[in-house]
C-alpha cells in the first residue's frame, strides 16, 4: 500500500509531457457554477435507470435544464454485450462526438494506435431529441471496451521513467493521459469543439447533456439499463448559451466519478495547486478541479479514503482537539500539505467509484466543513440493501417509493435517515456505501465506523407473504367506547408482540370502522397519527415498515372522503389538484379540508401555498394536507388571528410555514430546510427531525421538535421566538440572536429501538454555539457538562436558577403532552431523578461592545 515519493514524483513530472500546448490551457475564465441538485444510490442488486428518473424530476427546481448528467457503476455485462471478463478487465471508454465527422479522426489519432479494442458500439438513442423537450441535440456517444497495447505500455513506461509501477497502474495512467490528450486536441483547442471523453474507467459510464438529467435517461434509452450505483446531477449554470455538455457534471478521475452541489470561492487557488502538479483543467468549472484533485489524492498519492477526505474537508476548531493524538499528527501533516487544494465555500460531493484494488464499488458523500449545502443520507437493509445520498430527502423517498411499487422487497421509507457534520471528529462529514465482492453493502463514516441498522432480531415486512386472513379479528366494538389515548396506550404496549400480519389486520379493521361516519373517522385519524408520531417499542418490526403501513391506511381513509361541495354539513371534505378550482366556502369553520397535495406544483400559481391562502380566504380553518412530495412554501405567509390548525403528512418540502403568523402546524414527518423562516406567531410541532436554518429570523411563536436539528437554527431570531428541541443540534445555533424574551431548550435525547428515552452523547456538537448573540438564552440539558466554553463565541455558560426553571417548565409540560416525553425522564440521570439545576445549564450572551466608525473592520 502506498507509493514512494519517488514514484509519485515521476508520475507528476512526466505529466509535463502531455502539456504540449500551454496556450490552449491559459484561458482562465471560469464558467460559473450555479447550484444544483445531486443524488446517488447504491444497491446490492442492480437497479434500472427508470427509478432514478422520478427523483431527478423531483429535483427540477434545483436545476434549470441547462445541464444534467448521470453516471452508472457496476454494470450488466449482458446489457453491454460483453463477457464478464471484459467488463471487469477492460476500460470502458465513452466518447461524445459533437459533430458527425470527427469520429474517424479521433479514432485514427487516439484509439487505434494504442488500444486493443474488445468491443465498439454506438449508444442507442431515441430518434428525435425534440420529442422529449430538448433544445440542443445531445452528442452521439460511442463506447469502446479497450486495453492498452503491450508495446504502447512499454514505450510509455520507458519514456516517462515509470519503471516502478505495476502493469495495471501503468495502464491506468496511460488511459488517463490519453483521454487528456484527446480532450486537449479535440475539445479544448481554440476553434470548434469536436469530441471529448465522458468516462474511461472500468465498469462505469457517464452521460451528460444540455437539458435535465432525467432527459439523459430518456434520450439514451436507459430506463431498463441496470447498474448497482447510479448518481445524477441537475445543473443550474448561469453562464452562456450552452450548446454542449462538456461543462456538465459528472466529472471523472480514472475510476472515480464526481458530482457536486455548490460553488467554490477558490477555484483559482485549487487550479494553481493542480498546475503545480502538472494538472491543467480543461472544462473550466470548479467541479472538474474537484474531480482532478480527488484523482490526485486517491490514485497518484494513493491516500486511503480517510486521508483524502481530510485533505478536502479538514478537521478544525474544537473537532480537531477532540481527535486522538495519532490522528492529530497525521491530519496536521495532511492539512499543511494540502490546504491550498481544499475547496472553500459551499460544496457537497458525491463520488461513485470502482475501487479495483479492494474489488469494491463505492458511493461516497462528502460535505463541506461549514455545512453550507444540504445533504441527506439514507439506508435500508433487508434482503436488498440500498444506500442513498441526496440534496433533499424528498428525492430519496421518491426513489424508494418507485422501487417499492415494483418490488416488494423495498420499503418506501428508509430505515434510517441522517445528516453528516462536515469536518467533525464524530463522523468526518462523510459517509461511504461500499458494495463488496460478496454483494454485501456496508455504510461507514470517514473513520471507518459502521452505520448499523440491521438488528439480527428484526424481521422486516415481506409484503408478498402477508396473509391477513386466518387470524383473530379484533372486535370492532372495542373502538366505539375507547378514547384514542387509551387505545394508543394499549397499542404502544402491545404492538411489540404483534407480528406484521396481525398489525395489518388491525389497521384494516380500523379503516373499515372509519368508514362508518365522521366521528369514527376522527378516531381513526387520531389513532393513526399517534402511531406515526410517537416512539414506542416496535418489537421485531422495522419502524419504517410500520410507518409505511400506517400512512397507507391513513391515506386510504383520506382518499375515501367525499369531495368538497357547497352547503354540506359533512365534517371532512377532500380536494386534490384536479379539483382545485372547485373549492367552496365551508358552512362552518370547524369543517376540515383534506387536501391531497400530490399533483400540486412545487411552487407558484399552481402550488400549495397560494391554494392554502385561497382556502383560508374562503373561510376554511382546519386543514389536513397529505401525500406531499417535496412541494415548497406550504403555509407560507398565512396570517390569522383565529384558531387555525394544519396537519401535514408526507414528504413536505422546503420553506414550510415561512413567515406564518398565527396558525398551528403539526407536521407528522421529518422536515427539511428553511422551515418556519421568519415565523411570527403561532405554533409549529415537528414529529421528526429538522433540516437547515430552522426558524431563521423567527420573531415569535413556539416550536416543538421531536428529533434533531441539522444546523443554523434560530439565527437572527428576535422578539419572543421560542423553541423546544428534544434532539441535538449540529452547529451554528442562534447566531446573532437578538430575542429579548425568547429562548431555546435543547434536550439532547433520542429514542432507543424499543422506545425508551436515552441521552445523546451531547446536546450540541459543533464549535459555534450561540455566536454573536446580543440577547436571548439557550438552555441545554447537559448533566455531564459535555458542552464546553471552547464551543462558544461571544457567550458564556452558567447554571440555571429557579426563575429559569419557572420559565421553561410550562413549555416542557406542553412538550410532554405532545410527544410523551416525560419531564421526569428528562430529569433522570443515571437512574436517579435530579434537580433541574443539576441537569440543565444555560448559555447567555456576553455584553456586546458597540463598534464605532473608526474600527478597522469588524
Amino acid at each position, binding site marked *: 500500500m502506498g507509493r514512494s515519493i519517488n514514484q509519485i514524483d515521476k508520475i507528476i513530472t512526466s505529466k509535463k509531457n502531455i502539456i504540449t500546448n500551454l496556450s490552449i490551457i491559459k484561458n482562465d475564465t471560469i464558467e460559473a457554477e450555479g447550484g444544483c441538485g445531486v443524488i446517488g444510490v447504491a444497491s446490492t442488486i442492480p437497479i434500472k435507470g427508470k427509478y432514478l428518473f422520478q427523483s431527478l424530476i423531483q429535483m427540477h427546481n434545483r436545476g434549470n435544464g441547462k445541464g444534467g448528467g448521470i453516471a452508472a457503476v457496476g454494470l450488466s455485462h449482458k446489457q453491454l454485450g460483453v463477457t464478464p471478463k471484459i467488463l471487469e478487465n477492460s476500460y470502458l471508454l465513452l466518447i461524445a462526438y459533437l459533430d458527425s465527422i470527427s469520429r474517424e479522426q479521433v479514432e485514427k489519432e487516439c484509439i487505434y494506435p494504442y488500444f486493443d479494442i474488445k468491443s465498439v458500439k454506438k449508444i442507442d438513442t431515441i430518434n428525435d431529441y425534440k420529442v422529449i423537450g430538448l433544445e440542443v441535440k445531445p452528442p452521439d456517444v460511442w463506447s469502446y471496451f479497450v486495453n492498452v497495447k503491450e508495446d504502447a505500455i512499454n514505450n510509455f513506461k520507458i519514456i516517462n521513467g515509470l519503471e516502478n509501477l505495476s502493469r495495471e497502474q501503468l495502464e491506468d495512467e496511460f488511459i488517463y493521459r490519453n483521454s487528456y490528450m484527446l480532450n486537449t486536441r479535440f475539445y479544448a483547442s481554440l476553434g470548434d469543439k469536436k469530441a471529448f471523453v465522458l468516462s474511461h474507467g472500468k465498469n462505469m459510464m457517464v452521460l451528460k447533456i444540455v437539458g435535465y438529467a432525467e432527459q439523459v435517461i430518456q434520450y439514451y434509452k436507459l430506463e431498463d439499463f441496470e447498474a448497482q450505483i447510479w448518481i445524477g446531477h441537475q445543473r443550474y449554470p448561469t453562464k452562456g448559451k450552452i450548446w454542449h455538455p462538456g461543462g456538465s457534471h459528472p466529472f471523472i478521475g480514472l475510476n472515480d466519478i464526481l458530482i457536486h452541489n455548490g460553488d467554490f470561492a477558490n477555484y483559482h487557488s485549487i487550479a494553481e495547486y493542480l498546475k503545480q502538479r502538472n494538472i491543467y483543467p480543461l472544462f473550466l468549472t470548479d467541479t472538474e478541479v474537484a474531480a482532478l484533485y480527488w484523482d490526485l489524492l486517491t490514485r497518484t498519492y494513493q491516500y486511503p479514503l480517510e486521508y483524502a477526505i481530510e485533505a478536502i474537508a479538514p478537521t478544525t476548531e474544537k473537532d480537531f482537539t477532540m481527535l486522538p493524538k495519532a490522528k492529530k499528527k497525521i491530519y496536521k501533516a495532511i492539512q499543511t500539505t494540502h490546504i491550498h487544494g481544499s475547496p472553500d465555500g459551499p460544496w457537497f460531493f458525491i463520488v461513485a467509484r470502482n475501487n479495483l484494488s479492494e474489488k469494491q464499488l463505492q458511493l461516497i458523500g462528502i460535505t463541506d466543513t461549514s455545512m*453550507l449545502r444540504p445533504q441527506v443520507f439514507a439506508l435500508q437493509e433487508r434482503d436488498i440493501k440500498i444506500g442513498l445520498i441526496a440534496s433533499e430527502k424528498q428525492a430519496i423517498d421518491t426513489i424508494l417509493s418507485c422501487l417499492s411499487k415494483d418490488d416488494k422487497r423495498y420499503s418506501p421509507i428508509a430505515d434510517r435517515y441522517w445528516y453528516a457534520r462536515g469536518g467533525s471528529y464524530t463522523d468526518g462529514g462523510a459517509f461511504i456505501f461500499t458494495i463488496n465482492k460478496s454483494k454485501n453493502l456496508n455504510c461507514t463514516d470517514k473513520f471507518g465506523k459502521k452505520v448499523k441498522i440491521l438488528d439480527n432480531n428484526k424481521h422486516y415486512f415481506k409484503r408478498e407473504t402477508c396473509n391477513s386472513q386466518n387470524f383473530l379479528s379484533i372486535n370492532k366494538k372495542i373502538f366505539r367506547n375507547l378514547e384514542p389515548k387509551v387505545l394508543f396506550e394499549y397499542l404502544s404496549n402491545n404492538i411489540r408482540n404483534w407480528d406484521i400480519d396481525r398489525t395489518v389486520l388491525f389497521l384494516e379493521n380500523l379503516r373499515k370502522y372509519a368508514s362508518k361516519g365522521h366521528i369514527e373517522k376522527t378516531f381513526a385519524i387520531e389513532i393513526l397519527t399517534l402511531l406515526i408520531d410517537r416512539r414506542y417499542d416496535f418489537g421485531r418490526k422495522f419502524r419504517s415498515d410500520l410507518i409505511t403501513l400506517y400512512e397507507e391506511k391513513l391515506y386510504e381513509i383520506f382518499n375515501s372522503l367525499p369531495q368538497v361541495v357547497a352547503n354540506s354539513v359533512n365534517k371532512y371534505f377532500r380536494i386534490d389538484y384536479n379539483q382545485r378550482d372547485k373549492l367552496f366556502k365551508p358552512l362552518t369553520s370547524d369543517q376540515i379540508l383534506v387536501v391531497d397535495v400530490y399533483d400540486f406544483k412545487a411552487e407558484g400559481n399552481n402550488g400549495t401555498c397560494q391554494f392554502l391562502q385561497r382556502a383560508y380566504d374562503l373561510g376554511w380553518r382546519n386543514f389536513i394536507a397529505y401525500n406531499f412530495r417535496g412541494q415548497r412554501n406550504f403555509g407560507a405567509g398565512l396570517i390569522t388571528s383565529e384558531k387555525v390548525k394544519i396537519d401535514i403528512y408526507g414528504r413536505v418540502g422546503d420553506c414550510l410555514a415561512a413567515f406564518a403568523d398565527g396558525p398551528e402546524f403539526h407536521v407528522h414527518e421529518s422536515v427539511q430546510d428553511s422551515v418556519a423562516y421568519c415565523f411570527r406567531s403561532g405554533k409549529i410541532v415537528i414529529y421528526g427531525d429538522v433540516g437547515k436554518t430552522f426558524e431563521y429570523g423567527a420573531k415569535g411563536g413556539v416550536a416543538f421538535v421531536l428529533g434533531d436539528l441539522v444546523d443554523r437554527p434560530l439565527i437572527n431570531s428576535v422578539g419572543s421566538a421560542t423553541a423546544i428541541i428534544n434532539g441535538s443540534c449540529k452547529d451554528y445555533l442562534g447566531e446573532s440572536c437578538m430575542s429579548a424574551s425568547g429562548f431555546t431548550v435543547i434536550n439532547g435525547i433520542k429514542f432507543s429501538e424499543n422506545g425508551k428515552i436515552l441521552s445523546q452523547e451531547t446536546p450540541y456538537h459543533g464549535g459555534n454555539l450561540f455566536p454573536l448573540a446580543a440577547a436571548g438564552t439557550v438552555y441545554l440539558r447537559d448533566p455531564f457538562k459535555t458542552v464546553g466554553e471552547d464551543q462558544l463565541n461571544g457567550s458564556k455558560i452558567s447554571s440555571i436558577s429557579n426563575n429559569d426553571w419557572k420559565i421553561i417548565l410550562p413549555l416542557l409540560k406542553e412538550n410532554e403532552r405532545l410527544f410523551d416525553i416525560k419531564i421526569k425522564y428528562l430529569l433522570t440521570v443515571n437512574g436517579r431523578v435530579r434537580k433541574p439545576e443539576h441537569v440543565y445549564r444555560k448559555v447567555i450572551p456576553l455584553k456586546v461592545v458597540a463598534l464605532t466608525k473608526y474600527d478597522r473592520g469588524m
Partner: protein
Amino acid sequence: MKQKLLFQTPEIKYCSYRYQNIITKYEVIIDRSRCTECGLCVQTCPKYIGTARFDYEAFQKHEGYLRIINLNSQCKGLLCQKCVNKCPTKALSVRINPQYLALGDYRWTSDLILSIWKQAETGKLSNRYEYKIGSSGGGFDRLRFDFELKNKRVSNNQNDIEYIDTSISLNKSNDGRPRIIIPIPVYGADMSFGSVSLNTMLARAKAAQAWNIFTSTGEGGYPSELIKYKNHIITQIATGHFGVNAETIKRAKIVVLKYAQGAKPGLGGHLLADKVNSDVAKIRDVVPNISLFSPFPFHNVYSVEDHYRHVQLIKDINPEVLVSVKVSTPTDIDMVAIGCYYAGANIIQIDGAFGGTGAAPDIAKNNIAMPIEYAIPIVHNYLISEGVRDKITIMASGGIRTAYDVAKIIALGADGAVIGTSELIALGCKRCANCERGRGCPSGIATTDPILANYIDPEWGCQRIINMYSSWKKQWDYILTKLGLGSIKELLPKNKVEFKKGRFNHLIHLDHVR
C-alpha cells in the same frame, strides 16, 4: 407634435431652506472699524433687494449695526462687487465663503449640493451652481452628452421644453404580475428607520406618492405611519429580517431582497447601539441600545438554487408582488445578474461602490466593489448576449447624484436609477457624515433622536423632494429633446455598450477624445 400628457406632474411650491443663513458661495465682510452705516451698499446692490439691511431695532437701542444678509443666495460676489466699490470708507470686501469651500467633496461638490438645495427650493435650475458634473475626475464626471459639447451655453429656460415620456416599466417579464409603470425613471433608495428618522421617511413617502413612484423601508421594518402610502412603499427584506413579516410582504407592490449593498459589500448591516432607541428596537423586535448586526449572507441562500427558492417564496406569499433583488458589484456581477433573472426576479438593483450607508467601517467603504458606471454596461451587455435583457428591469444605484447622472446611466444600459443621497440633500443634508458616528445628524435627517428629528417637517420635506424631481424631469425632457429622442426608453441602448473612440450612444468619454 405635442405629446399627450401621460401623467399629471405634482405641483411645484416654493419651499425655502429651513435656516435663515443658507450657505452661499460668496460672502461680504464688513470691517466694523470702518463702517459708518451710511447704507449706500444697500441702495447700490443691483436687483437683489434685501441683500443688506439695517437692523433697525437694534439701531434704536444704540446697538444697531448694518448686517449684510445674502437672502436667497443671490449675491454674485466676485462677479459684481458693486457694494465694495461704492463703499466710501472701503469697509467691505467680498470673498468666497469658506463654508462653501468646506462643503462637499470631489464627488459631491459644493456646487452640486447647493444646486440640489436650489432645485428643492424652487423646482427650477439656477445657473449659479454647476448642476451636472462633480470634480471626481472619473466616472460620470468624465462623460458628456454630445450636445453638451456642441453648445456650451445651456439654455436655462426649461419651462418651454415639451413634456416627453420618461416612464419606465418595472416588470418586463411575462410572469403575469402587474406591469407597474412609473412616470420618471427613478425611485427612492432603501433607508431604514433607525438610520433615518420617521419624519424623513414620511417626507420621502409622500413625495413618492405625489410622483407615483416608490421609496423603500430599508431593512429596519415598516413603521405603521407609512401604511397609508403603502402603494408606494417597497418592503425590503435584508439579512437581519428586521420588521419583516407576512403583512409587510403582502402589503407591498414591490419587495426588494437585499443580498448586498454597494457601500459595504461583504458586510451586513450595522446599526450602532446609540441609534437603537426604544422606537427602533420596538419595530425591529429587539432590545434597545445594543448594536444590531445583520449577517452578511442570507443563511438560507448559499447557492443559486437557494436564491431561486428564496425569490419564489416571496412570490408565493404575495401573488401580485414584484420582486427586486439588490446586489453589489463584484467582478462577476454578470453572473449574479443572470442568476437573478433565472431565479425569477423582476428587477435587479445594482448598487455600486459609491453608495451611501448609515454605518460601515471606512476600510470597506473606501476600497471594495466596482463603481456603478462600470458595472451597468457589463450587466447590460451580458444580458443581451443571453437574450434576456428585455425581460428584466435594471435599476442602478450607488452614487447617482443628478438628473444628468441618471440620464448617463440609462445611456449606459440601465432602465433607471435608485436615488438616495440626493433626496436627503433635498431635505437639507450637508454631507457632514456625522450620521455614521452615532445620533448626531445636525440636520435632523439621519437620526432617531426625537428632538433633532423634529427639524424635518414631513410636508415641507415632501415638497422639497417633489421640487427636486420636478427640476430633474425638466432636465430629462431637455436632454431627450436635444438628443432627438421621443422617450427615455429610446435612450436605453438596444445593443451592447461599446465605446468606439470614446463615443457611444450619444455619450462622449472625455478621456478618449481630444
